[in-house]
């Protein structure tokens, strides 16, 4: 059993710091700002992840047909940078949540599972609704889809495809 602790005057020690304003309560805005950053990071991460997964579905469907896909094509065409940004985003998001919510219980496995499932479902819906054709005509994404198209022409076709 640990030895009985000697009586320490916490009240005097801490209250003197509070009264002299050596320690101050962080303003509410600090925590609101933390939550906003977390939400923005997650929206950003979610969008990137949905986009990456959607591109994956798009490449699979477009290039080889869903049952005849070739790993090689996928590896060449996959926009790996989005994956790297997504992973960095996940790490950043978790760090922000842990920093700002150090005292409440969070079921991270549940949150991450829901997050991954919703990414796959959203990406599938985007692909199913053919929204890639719409994105391909819009300004920010036009170039990306054009590059994809160019690469598509350079890579030799496999027999039985198209």
């Amino acid at each position, binding site marked *: *059993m*640990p*030895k*009985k*602790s*000697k009586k*320490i005057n*916490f*009240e005097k*020690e*801490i*209250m003197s*710091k*509070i*009264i002299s304003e050596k*320690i*101050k*309560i*962080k*303003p*509410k805005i*600090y*925590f609101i700002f933390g939550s906003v950053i977390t939400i923005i990071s997650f929206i950003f991460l979610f969008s990137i992840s949905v986009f990456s997964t959607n591109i994956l579905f798009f490449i699979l469907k477009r290039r080889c047909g869903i049952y005849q896909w070739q790993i090689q094509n996928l590896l060449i065409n996959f926009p790996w940078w989005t994956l790297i940004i997504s992973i960095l985003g996940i790490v950043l998001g978790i760090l922000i949540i842990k920093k*700002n*919510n*150090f*005292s*409440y*219980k*969070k079921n991270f496995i549940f949150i991450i599972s829901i997050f991954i499932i919703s990414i796959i479902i959203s990406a599938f819906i985007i692909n199913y609704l053919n929204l890639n054709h719409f994105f391909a005509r819009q300004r920010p994404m036009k170039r990306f889809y054009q590059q994809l198209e160019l690469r598509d022409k350079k890579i030799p076709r496999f027999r039985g495809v198209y």
Partner: protein
Amino acid sequence: MTPIHDLSDEKLVLKIRTQNKELFSFIIKRYQDKLLRYALYLCQDENQAADIVQESFIKSYINLNSFDTKRKFSSWIYRIVHNEAMNALRGTHKQFSLDEDFEIDSGVNLENEMLQKELKEHISLCFTKMPIIYREPLSLYFLEEKSYEEISDILKLPVSTVGTRINRAKILMKKICQKNQKK
């Protein structure tokens, strides 16, 4: 108007935030002994425990605006002490390992009244020999009289895991005590 002494922790926190920061002294009075005892069970060193508690009070005051007053303040502040203690233990590499070769000797009579006083001290000694993952929920449940739900909030573990750990801790405690008694 309700006197300060009768206010709940959560209402007191609201007052500290909005009206009078000096009321934090009531929080210190309410929790200093409990938190010190809890920290002492975790780190086994009175000076380190005092540092942990002091740091926890300071952290809780600084972050008081992040506390959700719909939740239990005690779970929140215990969680802060837990985090501080874990950081301190990580820093000093102070971990109490468990000898896995314990044997249960059912012939030892733990209920014997003659031995009660001696056993109390003996049990306390056994307690310190338990690994921290069992010592912590056990101390919160039996010594701090927290519910499974509160322990779950403090340790960020599912309620079922808390139950399992407490049950295992009881078995382990018995084994350790019986082994020590034989010596």
